[in-house]
Protein backbone atom coordinates (compact mmCIF):
# COMPACT_ATOMS: atom_id res chain seq x y z
CA UNK A 1 0.00 0.00 0.00
CA UNK A 2 1.31 3.41 -0.93
CA UNK A 3 2.06 5.74 1.96
CA UNK A 4 1.47 8.82 -0.14
CA UNK A 5 -1.57 10.24 -1.87
CA UNK A 6 -1.49 12.04 -5.22
CA UNK A 7 -3.87 14.88 -5.84
CA UNK A 8 -4.12 17.89 -8.10
CA UNK A 9 -3.60 21.40 -6.74
CA UNK A 10 -4.27 24.22 -9.22
CA UNK A 11 -3.69 21.67 -11.98
CA UNK A 12 -0.36 20.51 -10.59
CA UNK A 13 0.21 16.95 -9.29
CA UNK A 14 1.23 16.86 -5.62
CA UNK A 15 2.22 13.90 -3.43
CA UNK A 16 1.58 14.10 0.30
CA UNK A 17 1.59 11.57 3.14
CA UNK A 18 -1.61 9.59 3.79
CA UNK A 19 -3.73 11.49 6.32
CA UNK A 20 -2.29 14.89 5.38
CA UNK A 21 -4.68 17.82 5.03
CA UNK A 22 -5.55 19.61 1.81
CA UNK A 23 -3.91 22.67 3.41
CA UNK A 24 -0.60 20.82 3.58
CA UNK A 25 -0.93 19.77 -0.07
CA UNK A 26 -1.87 23.29 -1.14
CA UNK A 27 1.16 24.76 0.66
CA UNK A 28 3.48 22.68 -1.52
CA UNK A 29 2.24 24.64 -4.52
CA UNK A 30 1.27 28.08 -3.28
CA UNK A 31 0.60 30.15 -0.18
CA UNK A 32 -2.31 31.79 -1.97
CA UNK A 33 -5.37 29.92 -0.72
CA UNK A 34 -8.01 32.57 -1.29
CA UNK A 35 -8.37 36.23 -2.19
CA UNK A 36 -9.93 38.40 0.50
CA UNK A 37 -12.80 40.79 -0.22
CA UNK A 38 -10.18 43.56 -0.36
CA UNK A 39 -8.14 41.60 -2.91
CA UNK A 40 -5.20 40.36 -0.85
CA UNK A 41 -3.83 36.79 -0.74
CA UNK A 42 -4.68 34.77 2.30
CA UNK A 43 -3.41 31.50 3.76
CA UNK A 44 -4.22 29.49 6.90
CA UNK A 45 -3.96 31.30 10.22
CA UNK A 46 -5.35 29.02 12.92
CA UNK A 47 -4.75 25.54 11.47
CA UNK A 48 -7.76 24.16 13.34
CA UNK A 49 -10.90 25.12 11.46
CA UNK A 50 -11.72 28.36 13.27
CA UNK A 51 -10.52 31.22 11.04
CA UNK A 52 -11.76 30.06 7.61
CA UNK A 53 -8.76 31.71 5.89
CA UNK A 54 -7.83 28.39 4.24
CA UNK A 55 -11.02 28.04 2.19
CA UNK A 56 -10.47 26.44 -1.23
CA UNK A 57 -12.51 24.65 -3.87
CA UNK A 58 -12.36 20.87 -3.53
CA UNK A 59 -13.82 18.63 -6.25
CA UNK A 60 -16.01 21.50 -7.38
CA UNK A 61 -17.35 22.42 -3.94
CA UNK A 62 -16.48 25.99 -2.98
CA UNK A 63 -15.44 27.33 0.43
CA UNK A 64 -14.22 24.09 1.98
CA UNK A 65 -11.72 24.48 4.82
CA UNK A 66 -8.45 22.97 3.58
CA UNK A 67 -7.13 22.42 7.11
CA UNK A 68 -10.17 20.31 8.05
CA UNK A 69 -10.16 18.11 4.96
CA UNK A 70 -7.95 15.02 4.67
CA UNK A 71 -6.51 14.39 1.20
CA UNK A 72 -7.91 11.67 -1.06
CA UNK A 73 -6.33 10.13 -4.14
CA UNK A 74 -7.29 12.07 -7.25
CA UNK A 75 -8.77 15.05 -5.40
CA UNK A 76 -9.00 18.28 -7.42
CA UNK A 77 -8.10 21.33 -5.37
CA UNK A 78 -8.27 24.90 -6.58
CA UNK A 79 -7.46 28.11 -4.76
CA UNK A 80 -10.16 30.81 -4.66
CA UNK A 81 -9.35 33.82 -6.82
Amino acid at each position, binding site marked *: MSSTVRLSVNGQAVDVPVGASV*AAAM*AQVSLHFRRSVGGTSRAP*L*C*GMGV*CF*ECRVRIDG*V*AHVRACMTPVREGMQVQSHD
Partner: protein
Amino acid sequence: MTELYDVLVVGAGPAGLAAAQAAAGQGARVGLIDAQARPGGQVWRHDVRRAAPRAAREAIAHLHGVEWLAQHSVIAAEASALRVETPQGSNLLAYGSLILATGARELLLPFPGWTLPGVTGAGGLQALTKQGWPVAGKRVVIAGSGPLLLAAAATLRAHGARLQGIYEQASTATVHAFARQLLHWPARAVQALGLRARLFGVPYHFGSFVRHAHGDTALQVVEIETPNGTQTIDCDLLAAGYGLVPNVELASALGCSLTYPGAHPQVQVDAFLRTGVANVYAAGEACGIGGLAVARLEGTIAGHMATGNTEAATALLPQRNQARRFGDLLTKHFALDPRLRKLADQQTLICRCEDVTLGELDAFSDARAAKLATRCGMGACQGRICGTALAELGRFPRSGSRPPLFPARLATLAGAATFPSSDDEYRGSRS
Protein backbone atom coordinates in the same frame (compact mmCIF):
# COMPACT_ATOMS: atom_id res chain seq x y z
CA MET B 1 -32.64 10.32 10.83
CA THR B 2 -32.16 10.57 14.59
CA GLU B 3 -29.72 8.61 16.71
CA LEU B 4 -30.18 8.44 20.47
CA TYR B 5 -27.22 8.25 22.82
CA ASP B 6 -27.28 7.88 26.58
CA VAL B 7 -24.25 10.14 26.65
CA LEU B 8 -23.08 12.34 23.81
CA VAL B 9 -19.61 13.87 24.10
CA VAL B 10 -18.68 16.88 21.96
CA GLY B 11 -14.96 17.15 21.33
CA ALA B 12 -12.43 14.31 21.12
CA GLY B 13 -9.47 15.94 22.81
CA PRO B 14 -8.13 14.69 26.17
CA ALA B 15 -11.26 15.76 28.07
CA GLY B 16 -13.71 14.25 25.59
CA LEU B 17 -11.75 11.01 25.26
CA ALA B 18 -11.65 10.61 29.04
CA ALA B 19 -15.35 11.44 29.34
CA ALA B 20 -16.36 8.94 26.67
CA GLN B 21 -14.23 6.21 28.21
CA ALA B 22 -15.62 6.80 31.72
CA ALA B 23 -19.22 6.84 30.50
CA ALA B 24 -18.81 3.76 28.32
CA GLY B 25 -17.30 1.97 31.34
CA GLN B 26 -20.77 2.18 32.92
CA GLY B 27 -22.36 0.46 29.96
CA ALA B 28 -23.95 3.58 28.49
CA ARG B 29 -24.40 4.04 24.76
CA VAL B 30 -21.81 6.74 24.12
CA GLY B 31 -21.29 8.87 21.03
CA LEU B 32 -18.09 10.89 20.67
CA ILE B 33 -18.16 13.58 18.01
CA ASP B 34 -15.51 15.91 16.66
CA ALA B 35 -15.25 18.20 13.67
CA GLN B 36 -11.81 16.78 12.93
CA ALA B 37 -11.18 13.57 11.03
CA ARG B 38 -9.13 11.98 13.83
CA PRO B 39 -9.52 11.92 17.61
CA GLY B 40 -6.97 13.68 19.81
CA GLY B 41 -8.11 17.29 19.78
CA GLN B 42 -5.38 19.89 19.39
CA VAL B 43 -2.86 18.83 22.01
CA TRP B 44 -2.95 15.21 20.85
CA ARG B 45 -3.47 16.00 17.18
CA HIS B 46 -2.47 13.18 14.84
CA ASP B 47 0.91 13.75 13.20
CA VAL B 48 1.16 12.32 9.68
CA ARG B 49 4.90 11.76 10.00
CA ARG B 50 5.57 11.03 13.67
CA ALA B 51 4.14 8.73 16.32
CA ALA B 52 1.76 10.17 18.92
CA PRO B 53 2.77 10.38 22.61
CA ARG B 54 1.98 7.22 24.55
CA ALA B 55 -0.78 8.84 26.64
CA ALA B 56 -2.56 9.90 23.44
CA ARG B 57 -2.23 6.46 21.84
CA GLU B 58 -3.61 4.82 24.98
CA ALA B 59 -6.52 7.24 25.35
CA ILE B 60 -7.53 6.67 21.74
CA ALA B 61 -7.03 2.90 21.95
CA HIS B 62 -9.23 2.69 25.09
CA LEU B 63 -12.43 3.78 23.41
CA HIS B 64 -14.17 0.43 23.83
CA GLY B 65 -17.88 0.67 23.36
CA VAL B 66 -17.71 4.29 22.17
CA GLU B 67 -19.13 5.25 18.80
CA TRP B 68 -16.54 7.54 17.24
CA LEU B 69 -18.21 10.04 14.92
CA ALA B 70 -15.53 11.81 12.88
CA GLN B 71 -15.98 15.06 10.94
CA HIS B 72 -19.22 15.87 12.76
CA SER B 73 -19.63 19.63 13.16
CA VAL B 74 -22.34 20.82 15.52
CA ILE B 75 -24.50 23.34 13.70
CA ALA B 76 -27.33 23.94 16.14
CA ALA B 77 -28.77 22.85 19.48
CA GLU B 78 -32.30 21.44 19.41
CA ALA B 79 -34.41 19.95 22.23
CA SER B 80 -32.10 17.33 23.85
CA ALA B 81 -30.43 16.89 20.48
CA LEU B 82 -27.70 18.38 18.33
CA ARG B 83 -27.96 19.06 14.62
CA VAL B 84 -24.66 17.98 13.05
CA GLU B 85 -23.18 18.28 9.60
CA THR B 86 -20.76 15.79 8.06
CA PRO B 87 -19.09 15.81 4.64
CA GLN B 88 -21.83 13.38 3.55
CA GLY B 89 -24.95 14.92 5.01
CA SER B 90 -26.59 16.03 8.20
CA ASN B 91 -27.99 14.22 11.18
CA LEU B 92 -29.79 14.78 14.46
CA LEU B 93 -28.10 13.26 17.49
CA ALA B 94 -30.35 13.00 20.54
CA TYR B 95 -28.92 12.53 24.00
CA GLY B 96 -29.82 11.70 27.57
CA SER B 97 -26.77 13.56 28.85
CA LEU B 98 -24.41 15.86 27.01
CA ILE B 99 -20.75 16.51 27.83
CA LEU B 100 -19.18 19.61 26.34
CA ALA B 101 -15.46 19.08 25.83
CA THR B 102 -15.14 21.76 23.20
CA GLY B 103 -11.64 22.82 24.24
CA ALA B 104 -9.99 26.07 23.33
CA ARG B 105 -8.62 28.00 20.42
CA GLU B 106 -5.66 30.32 20.16
CA LEU B 107 -5.81 33.96 21.04
CA LEU B 108 -4.62 35.67 17.85
CA LEU B 109 -3.91 39.38 18.10
CA PRO B 110 -3.79 41.81 15.19
CA PHE B 111 -0.60 43.68 14.27
CA PRO B 112 0.42 45.31 10.99
CA GLY B 113 1.08 42.55 8.46
CA TRP B 114 -0.72 39.77 10.31
CA THR B 115 -2.84 38.92 7.27
CA LEU B 116 0.21 38.04 5.11
CA PRO B 117 0.40 34.40 4.02
CA GLY B 118 3.06 32.79 6.21
CA VAL B 119 1.79 34.39 9.42
CA THR B 120 -0.04 31.82 11.55
CA GLY B 121 -0.83 31.09 15.16
CA ALA B 122 1.82 29.24 17.18
CA GLY B 123 -0.43 26.28 17.90
CA GLY B 124 -1.73 27.00 14.40
CA LEU B 125 1.58 26.25 12.72
CA GLN B 126 2.08 23.26 15.00
CA ALA B 127 -1.30 21.89 13.86
CA LEU B 128 -0.52 22.56 10.19
CA THR B 129 2.89 20.92 10.54
CA LYS B 130 1.28 17.79 11.97
CA GLN B 131 -1.08 17.82 8.99
CA GLY B 132 1.95 17.57 6.70
CA TRP B 133 2.56 21.28 5.98
CA PRO B 134 6.06 21.60 4.49
CA VAL B 135 8.33 23.26 7.09
CA ALA B 136 11.62 21.39 6.51
CA GLY B 137 14.36 23.93 5.84
CA LYS B 138 12.00 26.87 6.38
CA ARG B 139 13.12 29.78 8.57
CA VAL B 140 10.54 30.08 11.35
CA VAL B 141 10.09 32.70 14.07
CA ILE B 142 7.97 31.66 17.05
CA ALA B 143 6.38 34.42 19.10
CA GLY B 144 3.62 35.19 21.55
CA SER B 145 3.19 33.83 25.03
CA GLY B 146 3.03 30.75 27.18
CA PRO B 147 4.31 27.18 27.22
CA LEU B 148 2.55 26.43 23.92
CA LEU B 149 5.37 28.32 22.19
CA LEU B 150 7.86 25.68 23.35
CA ALA B 151 5.60 22.80 22.35
CA ALA B 152 5.06 24.31 18.90
CA ALA B 153 8.76 24.96 18.51
CA ALA B 154 9.62 21.36 19.41
CA THR B 155 7.18 20.00 16.81
CA LEU B 156 8.54 22.36 14.15
CA ARG B 157 12.12 21.43 14.90
CA ALA B 158 11.32 17.73 14.77
CA HIS B 159 9.92 18.33 11.28
CA GLY B 160 13.10 20.05 10.12
CA ALA B 161 12.22 23.75 10.47
CA ARG B 162 15.09 26.18 11.03
CA LEU B 163 14.00 27.99 14.18
CA GLN B 164 15.21 31.59 14.23
CA GLY B 165 14.20 32.09 17.84
CA ILE B 166 11.33 31.96 20.32
CA TYR B 167 10.07 35.37 21.45
CA GLU B 168 8.06 35.32 24.68
CA GLN B 169 6.29 38.55 25.59
CA ALA B 170 6.47 37.91 29.35
CA SER B 171 9.49 39.45 31.04
CA THR B 172 12.58 37.51 32.08
CA ALA B 173 11.67 38.08 35.74
CA THR B 174 8.17 36.64 35.42
CA VAL B 175 9.28 33.64 33.34
CA HIS B 176 11.96 32.88 35.94
CA ALA B 177 9.36 33.21 38.71
CA PHE B 178 7.17 30.76 36.79
CA ALA B 179 10.11 28.36 36.41
CA ARG B 180 10.67 28.47 40.19
CA GLN B 181 6.99 27.62 40.74
CA LEU B 182 7.48 24.53 38.60
CA LEU B 183 9.44 23.03 41.50
CA HIS B 184 6.03 22.41 43.08
CA TRP B 185 4.83 20.66 39.92
CA PRO B 186 7.36 17.87 39.30
CA ALA B 187 5.57 16.40 36.27
CA ARG B 188 5.35 19.83 34.62
CA ALA B 189 9.00 20.54 35.46
CA VAL B 190 10.07 17.29 33.77
CA GLN B 191 7.94 18.19 30.74
CA ALA B 192 9.44 21.71 30.57
CA LEU B 193 12.99 20.40 30.87
CA GLY B 194 12.27 17.85 28.16
CA LEU B 195 11.07 20.60 25.84
CA ARG B 196 14.09 22.77 26.58
CA ALA B 197 16.38 19.81 25.81
CA ARG B 198 14.63 19.24 22.47
CA LEU B 199 15.10 22.94 21.75
CA PHE B 200 18.78 23.01 22.68
CA GLY B 201 20.52 25.82 20.83
CA VAL B 202 17.32 27.68 19.94
CA PRO B 203 17.39 31.20 21.43
CA TYR B 204 14.50 31.85 23.88
CA HIS B 205 13.99 35.59 24.36
CA PHE B 206 11.78 37.27 26.97
CA GLY B 207 10.05 40.63 27.09
CA SER B 208 9.92 40.48 23.26
CA PHE B 209 7.10 40.53 20.75
CA VAL B 210 6.49 40.90 17.01
CA ARG B 211 5.33 44.41 16.19
CA HIS B 212 5.19 44.23 12.39
CA ALA B 213 5.32 41.63 9.62
CA HIS B 214 6.47 42.66 6.15
CA GLY B 215 6.28 41.06 2.72
CA ASP B 216 4.86 41.62 -0.76
CA THR B 217 2.57 38.66 -1.38
CA ALA B 218 3.85 36.56 1.53
CA LEU B 219 5.84 37.04 4.74
CA GLN B 220 9.51 38.00 4.35
CA VAL B 221 10.60 39.95 7.44
CA VAL B 222 9.40 40.45 11.00
CA GLU B 223 10.16 43.37 13.28
CA ILE B 224 10.56 42.37 16.89
CA GLU B 225 10.44 44.67 19.88
CA THR B 226 12.95 43.54 22.51
CA PRO B 227 14.13 45.07 25.80
CA ASN B 228 17.23 46.17 23.83
CA GLY B 229 15.42 47.82 20.92
CA THR B 230 13.91 46.68 17.64
CA GLN B 231 15.31 43.73 15.68
CA THR B 232 14.44 42.63 12.16
CA ILE B 233 14.60 38.99 11.17
CA ASP B 234 14.23 37.46 7.71
CA CYS B 235 11.92 34.46 7.83
CA ASP B 236 9.51 32.31 5.80
CA LEU B 237 6.98 31.65 8.55
CA LEU B 238 5.90 33.43 11.71
CA ALA B 239 4.01 31.44 14.32
CA ALA B 240 2.49 33.90 16.79
CA GLY B 241 -0.01 32.93 19.49
CA TYR B 242 -0.88 34.74 22.71
CA GLY B 243 -2.43 31.94 24.73
CA LEU B 244 -5.78 30.18 24.57
CA VAL B 245 -9.45 31.12 24.84
CA PRO B 246 -12.26 28.65 25.63
CA ASN B 247 -14.68 27.57 22.89
CA VAL B 248 -18.07 28.42 24.40
CA GLU B 249 -20.29 28.83 21.35
CA LEU B 250 -22.18 25.56 21.77
CA ALA B 251 -22.53 26.02 25.53
CA SER B 252 -23.92 29.47 24.92
CA ALA B 253 -26.41 28.15 22.34
CA LEU B 254 -27.61 25.56 24.86
CA GLY B 255 -28.30 28.30 27.39
CA CYS B 256 -25.42 27.47 29.74
CA SER B 257 -24.19 30.36 31.89
CA LEU B 258 -20.84 31.87 30.99
CA THR B 259 -18.43 33.74 33.24
CA TYR B 260 -15.81 36.33 32.31
CA PRO B 261 -12.71 35.99 34.49
CA GLY B 262 -11.00 38.34 32.01
CA ALA B 263 -11.90 39.52 28.53
CA HIS B 264 -13.10 36.11 27.33
CA PRO B 265 -15.98 33.90 28.43
CA GLN B 266 -15.77 30.40 29.87
CA VAL B 267 -18.51 27.90 30.73
CA GLN B 268 -19.72 28.15 34.30
CA VAL B 269 -19.88 24.79 36.09
CA ASP B 270 -20.36 23.66 39.68
CA ALA B 271 -17.93 21.39 41.55
CA PHE B 272 -19.38 18.37 39.70
CA LEU B 273 -19.03 20.05 36.28
CA ARG B 274 -22.77 20.56 35.90
CA THR B 275 -23.73 23.56 33.82
CA GLY B 276 -26.96 25.27 34.78
CA VAL B 277 -28.77 23.29 32.08
CA ALA B 278 -30.15 19.88 33.13
CA ASN B 279 -28.03 16.92 32.00
CA VAL B 280 -25.41 19.11 30.36
CA TYR B 281 -21.85 18.92 31.72
CA ALA B 282 -18.69 20.71 30.64
CA ALA B 283 -15.09 19.62 31.08
CA GLY B 284 -11.58 20.83 30.35
CA GLU B 285 -10.51 24.03 28.60
CA ALA B 286 -14.08 25.12 27.84
CA CYS B 287 -14.45 25.77 31.60
CA GLY B 288 -11.25 27.83 31.75
CA ILE B 289 -7.73 27.20 30.50
CA GLY B 290 -6.16 24.57 32.75
CA GLY B 291 -4.10 22.32 30.53
CA LEU B 292 -3.93 18.63 29.70
CA ALA B 293 -4.01 17.18 33.24
CA VAL B 294 -7.13 19.17 34.12
CA ALA B 295 -8.81 18.15 30.89
CA ARG B 296 -8.26 14.43 31.49
CA LEU B 297 -9.47 14.59 35.10
CA GLU B 298 -12.51 16.69 34.33
CA GLY B 299 -13.39 14.52 31.36
CA THR B 300 -13.38 11.47 33.61
CA ILE B 301 -15.43 13.27 36.26
CA ALA B 302 -18.00 14.40 33.70
CA GLY B 303 -18.22 10.89 32.24
CA HIS B 304 -18.92 9.49 35.69
CA MET B 305 -21.46 12.19 36.49
CA ALA B 306 -23.31 11.71 33.21
CA THR B 307 -23.79 8.03 34.08
CA GLY B 308 -24.85 8.63 37.69
CA ASN B 309 -21.58 7.49 39.24
CA THR B 310 -21.25 10.38 41.69
CA GLU B 311 -19.01 8.41 44.01
CA ALA B 312 -16.31 7.86 41.38
CA ALA B 313 -16.57 11.52 40.37
CA THR B 314 -16.24 12.70 43.97
CA ALA B 315 -13.09 10.66 44.48
CA LEU B 316 -11.35 12.65 41.71
CA LEU B 317 -12.31 16.13 42.90
CA PRO B 318 -9.26 16.81 45.14
CA GLN B 319 -6.90 15.88 42.30
CA ARG B 320 -8.86 18.01 39.88
CA ASN B 321 -8.88 21.03 42.19
CA GLN B 322 -5.13 20.73 42.63
CA ALA B 323 -4.57 20.47 38.85
CA ARG B 324 -6.70 23.57 38.26
CA ARG B 325 -4.21 25.63 40.27
CA PHE B 326 -1.68 25.21 37.49
CA GLY B 327 -3.98 27.10 35.16
CA ASP B 328 -4.05 29.97 37.66
CA LEU B 329 -0.27 29.98 37.65
CA LEU B 330 -0.17 30.26 33.86
CA THR B 331 -2.70 33.09 33.80
CA LYS B 332 -0.72 35.02 36.39
CA HIS B 333 2.74 34.64 34.86
CA PHE B 334 1.85 34.95 31.19
CA ALA B 335 -0.43 37.99 31.54
CA LEU B 336 -0.18 40.05 28.37
CA ASP B 337 1.94 43.17 28.12
CA PRO B 338 -0.46 46.12 27.57
CA ARG B 339 1.67 47.19 24.57
CA LEU B 340 0.37 44.12 22.66
CA ARG B 341 -3.07 45.71 22.63
CA LYS B 342 -1.68 48.78 20.84
CA LEU B 343 0.10 47.06 17.94
CA ALA B 344 -2.71 47.36 15.40
CA ASP B 345 -2.82 50.77 13.73
CA GLN B 346 -5.73 52.49 11.97
CA GLN B 347 -5.06 50.62 8.71
CA THR B 348 -4.63 47.17 10.26
CA LEU B 349 -7.37 44.76 9.26
CA ILE B 350 -9.18 43.46 12.31
CA CYS B 351 -11.99 41.48 10.65
CA ARG B 352 -10.10 39.27 8.20
CA CYS B 353 -13.27 37.85 6.67
CA GLU B 354 -14.74 41.21 5.67
CA ASP B 355 -11.52 43.27 5.59
CA VAL B 356 -12.55 45.86 8.18
CA THR B 357 -9.77 48.04 9.62
CA LEU B 358 -9.35 49.15 13.20
CA GLY B 359 -9.88 52.74 12.09
CA GLU B 360 -13.30 51.89 10.68
CA LEU B 361 -14.30 50.56 14.13
CA ASP B 362 -13.34 53.68 16.06
CA ALA B 363 -16.86 55.06 16.06
CA PHE B 364 -18.42 52.00 17.73
CA SER B 365 -18.66 50.87 21.31
CA ASP B 366 -20.56 47.63 20.83
CA ALA B 367 -20.19 44.65 18.52
CA ARG B 368 -23.70 44.79 17.12
CA ALA B 369 -23.53 48.43 16.01
CA ALA B 370 -20.09 47.80 14.50
CA LYS B 371 -21.42 44.76 12.67
CA LEU B 372 -24.42 46.57 11.24
CA ALA B 373 -22.34 49.46 9.95
CA THR B 374 -19.09 47.77 8.85
CA ARG B 375 -19.85 44.02 8.50
CA CYS B 376 -17.15 43.36 11.13
CA GLY B 377 -17.76 39.83 12.42
CA MET B 378 -20.23 38.87 9.69
CA GLY B 379 -17.89 36.63 7.73
CA ALA B 380 -17.30 32.91 7.74
CA CYS B 381 -15.48 32.79 11.09
CA GLN B 382 -18.50 34.47 12.67
CA GLY B 383 -16.35 36.79 14.74
CA ARG B 384 -14.30 34.04 16.35
CA ILE B 385 -11.07 35.81 15.35
CA CYS B 386 -11.99 39.52 15.25
CA GLY B 387 -14.54 39.40 18.08
CA THR B 388 -12.06 37.73 20.39
CA ALA B 389 -9.30 40.13 19.35
CA LEU B 390 -11.51 43.19 19.89
CA ALA B 391 -12.48 41.92 23.34
CA GLU B 392 -8.80 41.48 24.20
CA LEU B 393 -8.00 44.95 22.83
CA GLY B 394 -10.60 46.38 25.20
CA ARG B 395 -12.83 47.69 22.40
CA PHE B 396 -16.04 45.73 23.07
CA PRO B 397 -17.08 42.17 23.96
CA ARG B 398 -17.95 39.75 21.16
CA SER B 399 -21.67 39.70 20.39
CA GLY B 400 -23.63 36.58 21.26
CA SER B 401 -23.46 33.88 18.60
CA ARG B 402 -26.53 32.59 16.82
CA PRO B 403 -27.20 29.37 14.96
CA PRO B 404 -25.77 28.04 12.73
CA LEU B 405 -22.74 27.69 15.01
CA PHE B 406 -20.60 27.22 11.91
CA PRO B 407 -21.40 28.07 8.30
CA ALA B 408 -23.65 25.22 7.12
CA ARG B 409 -25.32 24.02 3.97
CA LEU B 410 -28.94 24.96 3.52
CA ALA B 411 -29.79 21.27 3.34
CA THR B 412 -28.41 20.84 6.86
CA LEU B 413 -30.59 23.61 8.14
CA ALA B 414 -33.57 22.14 6.38
CA GLY B 415 -32.92 18.94 8.31
CA ALA B 416 -32.30 16.80 5.26
CA ALA B 417 -30.38 13.60 5.93
CA THR B 418 -28.35 13.74 2.71
CA PHE B 419 -27.18 16.52 0.46
CA PRO B 420 -28.07 16.82 -3.18
CA SER B 421 -25.02 16.04 -5.34
CA SER B 422 -24.59 19.46 -6.94
CA ASP B 423 -24.76 21.34 -3.72
CA ASP B 424 -22.77 24.37 -4.83
CA GLU B 425 -25.99 26.03 -5.93
CA TYR B 426 -27.21 25.68 -2.37
CA ARG B 427 -24.17 27.57 -1.12
CA GLY B 428 -24.85 30.42 -3.50
CA SER B 429 -21.37 30.21 -4.99
CA ARG B 430 -21.70 28.35 -8.24
CA SER B 431 -19.20 30.46 -10.20
